[in-house]
């Protein structure tokens, strides 16, 4: 219980820190660029949302810092992020809601797949120490992890789309198709998701392989695993139900963090493939100088990551008695 209270306290402090950073970034920059952009919208915005944007971005300067900080906190908690300037006059929240399902689908599925495949491969590699998997996987994924992951996307576009013509190059679906829940459209969406998903999978799986392998090597040397072997249990059962379960625990936090990052989309992969998710939206907001949208996206991503970490803390506490007893 004490453990959970501590973690909850940490969640709140981290949330507050992120909110505060978000508040001060525009104010610390020399010559706040948001000011020029927002000047065009005077008179066209309703006063309430204009005020919300001004408070969030530090424009206008007719208030003291402290009271605008309080007002910013209140606006954030109530979800009043104002209006997007590049999709004017659509509210920021609506713009985000449109992009969210794309990221959740693409990045969510490929993150989970990457975790499962990587963990299994890492466990098997460590189990057969010195086998061919153990010799081939770590060095090749060390090299793959050093590739910029957006570049793997460029390479796969060039190879599978432009040269071999197997897959479409850009977008989440064919432009001429009308979004509807038909087999044809769903198939089209899946077709467009193959290359970006492959890119994310290839670049994320290596980390899971390496960490799982390293955890597993430590766990396999423990006495209770020797005991299980001595009892003559089937190797497969020792691998997954004895050693694997415990080797997995330290990776849970990492997995939770990457699930939190699902919301943010794989920013650069979405950019390379023009995939209509949150990451692509963030970069579009940056190039369109849509500061209200940008700030709201940053907050959303941060909150998602922090909540995911908190959930993994709870899960770890439930699964591993050692975390509950220590501080």
């Amino acid at each position: 219980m004490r453990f959970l209270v501590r973690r909850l306290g940490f969640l709140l402090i981290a949330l507050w820190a992120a909110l505060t950073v978000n508040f001060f970034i525009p104010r610390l920059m020399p010559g706040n660029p948001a000011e020029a952009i927002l000047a065009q919208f005077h008179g066209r915005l309703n006063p309430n949302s204009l005020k919300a944007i001004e408070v969030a971005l530090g424009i206008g300067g007719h208030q003291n810092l402290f009271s605008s900080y309080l007002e910013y906190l209140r606006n954030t908690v109530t979800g009043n992020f104002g209006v997007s300037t590049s999709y004017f006059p659509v509210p920021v929240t609506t713009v985000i809601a449109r992009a969210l399902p794309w990221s959740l689908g693409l990045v969510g599925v490929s993150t989970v797949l990457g975790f499962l495949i990587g963990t299994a491969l890492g466990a098997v590699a460590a189990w057969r120490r010195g086998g061919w998997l153990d010799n081939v996987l770590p060095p090749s994924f060390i090299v793959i992890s050093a590739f910029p992951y957006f570049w793997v996307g460029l390479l796969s576009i060039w190879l599978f789309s432009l040269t071999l013509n197997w897959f479409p190059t850009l977008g989440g679906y064919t432009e001429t198709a009308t979004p509807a829940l038909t087999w044809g459209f769903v198939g089209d969406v899946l077709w467009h998701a193959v290359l970006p998903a492959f890119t994310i999978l290839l670049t994320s799986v290596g980390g899971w392989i390496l960490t799982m392998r390293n955890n597993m090597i430590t766990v396999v040397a423990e006495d209770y695993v020797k005991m299980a072997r001595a009892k003559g249990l089937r190797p497969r059962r020792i691998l997954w139900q004895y050693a694997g379960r415990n080797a997995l625990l330290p990776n849970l936090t990492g997995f939770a963090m990457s699930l939190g990052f699902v919301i943010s989309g794989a920013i650069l992969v979405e950019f390379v493939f023009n995939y209509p998710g949150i990451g692509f939206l963030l970069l579009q907001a940056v190039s369109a100088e849509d500061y209200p949208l940008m700030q709201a996206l940053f907050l959303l991503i941060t909150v998602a990551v922090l909540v995911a970490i908190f959930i993994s803390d709870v899960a770890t506490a439930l699964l591993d008695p050692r975390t509950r007893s220590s501080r």
Partner: protein
Amino acid sequence: MIWRNARRSLFAAWRFLLRDKKAMVGSIILLILIVISAFPSWFTPDDPSADIYNPGVGLSWAHPLGTTSFGQDVFSQLMAGTRQSVMIALVVGLISTVLSVVVGITAAYSGGLVDDTLSLITDVILVIPTFPLIIVIAAYTKSASFWTIVFVLVVTGWSYGARQLRVQALSLRNRDYLLAARARGEASWYIIGVELIPPMTSLIVANFLGAALYAVLAAAGLQFVGLGNVNSESWGTMLYWAQNNEALSAGLPLWALAPGIMIAVLGSALALLNYAFDEVSNPALRPVTTKRRKKVAV
């Protein structure tokens, strides 16, 4: 005493480089890239930014990697761009590592309220999503210069190492030889500098390499989406211009692919060294084959 220790650990590092294949490959690549970045003009036959050639030429003797749509020599641009990536790796790696060491060891050595405060700050920075934060900061600074990029990457990149070093230092803190040094009444700087830090060398080096790798990839990503200075000579900027001119579909794949390969080469060198140093600090991870051979020899 200090110097003898330093010499001994340098000698140990040298022997390690010769013995470990991964470390050997990594350090040779790194060395070559450092030479290129120190003397780019030895390797660039042409002025990298001058657009004086026929645009969009493929492979040839005159242009081993072809030219860009603007008529610049791709190979020369690659060589000239080496400097910035290597510099970012070294500078960000160095500053973040110093910060990690200072924060991590201060926290572990002081304990109490200092430890609690520093750990809390470290953990909070660790969980705030880095890349979106970098993008937001870069968006406000507009076309981030070299030092802006360095600053942003250091601010977001030191916390992981600080946490690791704190844990390691905590586990060393109550060892007998450190307690003995305290009982002798040695000064804090002596205990920290001579007794505490040397056993942590391999972890510190691994941290430096990890931070450097993170910096190379993050900086390339930032420049690729146009948040760096688009007029600078760097691999990320090359990728930006290649993407903007649709190099892939314009039949100039090398323009877009070559800079990525260079980033990967630098990144692999850092990652290989990092992995090798991981094996030094955690002997359980070392390849089993060498162990077996040793047993036979005995």
